[in-house]
């Protein structure tokens, strides 16, 4: 009996690509479960690799972000205007002579926030202890728009806007060290412009706790005018003007415009990267470490797959021979093997991602406590507690890379399988 499809084929002998692919999808999927133990070993290996990759990337990215946040949010904003040479040698004599002049230029920019600061090294004394600190005078209202210090107050209050209360805020860790509480007095001492030692008594108004215990122990904040009096500055003089940009601003372009606007050789405008080259280098090194991590992990996965697929092919030589005898083309043999590899990678990636998401979600909430390494971390401005961060660009890049590596890894076994001589394959024992 002649069927309609036979008659159609005389005019159009090409097979339907979708139908042909569907049978190989079916065969590939079922082939995975012919040897469940081997498949689960492969899937688990991939899952462990993906889990490690996602976890490590999230922590490295979180670590990097915390370091940058510390540099920007606590230690100088996106940009900083200062006297030339201040950054290399932050002496009190390297001051901005006219902060209003800087403010006038800054007021012509949109989407930026700025705050003047007076900063000097000094001593803090309580009734029981004394220690060296960085004394920073700030305009509380402006400062709150530029740095995140006000958000870190955990006890008491931040500095009030009017500035007339002789208040100081110190780190909670410093308060513990000095054994002082809210409302108690401390004495701040610093050298002034006349090389005399200036001193003042201040009431502890608030305690802050940031992610860096090192920062908390070494910084105190008081009103701008109080700090100016302490070091002998006039009302117009300041150490720096710190600038924060709204999201979407180009940092380098803004810095260039600001340099043009301020003009002159007496002032310099530095980005946070220029102020913290070590931090920039660390970020770059972590980025390189990311790449090495990904390549090493996925290369291991790829070799595992190659090994397994070579075994798979030798187990199925006869079967492949029968398929080619029945009209399966070499490209379709390769397709079938690639599909099998893709399914395994999808399962492994899915499982590894699921585990990683759970772990990252948990650690995002509670943080990973690395107090054992606190000293080293704090020196880079990083907290002792690290919160992972999901950067989808990094994650998608990693997934793309693993698929590319898998396809490259399976290329040799797939090509080998597609080149078997049919008669030899059918008779293979």
């Amino acid at each position, binding site marked *: 009996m002649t069927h309609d499809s036979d008659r159609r084929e005389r005019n159009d002998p090409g097979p339907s690509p979708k139908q042909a692919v569907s049978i190989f999808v079916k065969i590939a999927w079922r082939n995975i479960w012919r040897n469940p133990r081997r498949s689960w070993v492969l899937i688990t290996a991939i899952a462990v690799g993906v889990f490690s990759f996602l976890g490590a990337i999230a922590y490295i990215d979180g670590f990097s972000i915390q370091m940058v946040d510390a540099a920007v949010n606590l230690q100088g904003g996106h940009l900083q205007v200062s006297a030339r040479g201040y950054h290399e040698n932050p002496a009190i004599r390297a001051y901005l002579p006219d902060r209003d002049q800087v403010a006038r230029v800054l007021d012509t920019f949109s989407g930026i926030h700025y705050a003047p600061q007076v900063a000097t090294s000094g001593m803090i004394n309580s009734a029981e202890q004394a220690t060296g600190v960085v004394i920073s005078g700030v305009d509380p209202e402006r400062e709150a728009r530029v740095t995140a210090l006000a958000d870190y107050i955990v006890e008491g209050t931040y500095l009030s806007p009017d500035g007339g209360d002789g208040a100081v805020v110190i780190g909670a860790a410093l308060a513990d060290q000095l054994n002082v509480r809210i409302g108690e007095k401390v004495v701040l001492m610093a050298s002034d412009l006349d090389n005399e030692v200036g001193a003042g008594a201040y009431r502890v108004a608030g305690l802050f706790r940031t992610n860096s215990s090192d920062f908390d122990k070494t910084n105190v904040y008081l009103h701008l005018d109080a700090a100016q009096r302490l070091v002998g500055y006039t009302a117009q003089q300041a150490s720096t003007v710190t600038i924060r940009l709204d999201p979407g601003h180009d940092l380098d372009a803004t810095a260039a415009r600001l340099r043009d606007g301020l003009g002159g050789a007496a002032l310099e405008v530095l980005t946070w990267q220029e102020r913290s080259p070590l931090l920039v280098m660390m970020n770059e090194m972590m980025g390189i470490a990311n790449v090495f991590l990904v390549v090493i992990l996925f290369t291991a996965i790829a070799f595992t797959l190659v090994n397994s697929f070579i075994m798979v092919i030798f187990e199925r030589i006869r079967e492949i021979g029968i398929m080619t*005898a029945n009209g399966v083309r070499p490209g379709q043999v390769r397709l079938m093997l690639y599909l099998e590899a893709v399914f395994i990678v999808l399962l492994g990636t899915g499982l590894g991602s699921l585990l990683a998401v759970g772990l990252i979600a948990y650690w995002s909430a509670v943080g990973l406590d690395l107090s054992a390494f606190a000293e080293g971390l704090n020196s880079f401005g990083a907290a002792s507690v690290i919160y992972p961060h999901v950067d989808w660009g990094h994650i998608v890049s990693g997934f793309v890379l693993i698929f590319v590596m898998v396809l490259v890894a399976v290329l040799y076994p797939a090509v080998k399988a597609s080149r078997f001589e049919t008669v030899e394959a059918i008779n293979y024992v």
Partner: protein
Amino acid sequence: MQGWLVSTSQLVKVYQDKNQVPVKALNGVEFRVAAGEFTAVAGPSGSGKTTLLNLVGGLDTPTAGTVVVAGQNLGALSRNDLASFRLHNLGFVFQAYNLIPVLTAEENAEFNLLLRGVPAQERHTRVVQELEDLGIGRELIHRRPNELSGGQQQRVAVARALVSRPKLILADEPTANLDSQTGARLLDKMRDLNERTGITFLFSTHDPMVMERARRLVTLRDGQITEDERRG
């Protein structure tokens, strides 16, 4: 060569055995098969009958000579084109059933049809009918090969070869692993199909049951045709 479904000319095939000694499996064979024949190629082990079928089926390449099937010189085809030619023109039944282990009986039987783009409903109808004709009922069509007996597996393999109604079916020792009753039934079915549809059958065998049913018996010995007997 005009008018023949299969035609070989000076066909030579030389293998190397495991000691790298060349063995001439076919030695200048001139062989013709017309459309509609039910032909058995018989001979002792090592006579070259399986080699001849493999070359006619495009599963192997000759050392010398030509093979023309359905007007196509197989030596002129690329691997892709050869696979496509087999898909659309040939059917194979092997001694060892050779079903795809992860596919069910129905899926194995419809394999060629699916590769050829036959719609699903038509595939199902044809395959189920073919399997039932061969004694594989609906209760068995969803079983995988390891859940079928040897005879059932061979019938599925025959269904796979038949259902696409190829011009030529090549069957290499199809009854070797079957009991005589099953083998006889299968051969009768094939013979009946040959008579009804005109599909050409070419067997490689040393089974008397096959030889006695063949309308033409070709004997090979030492790589050459020694007898060519046409019957009825």
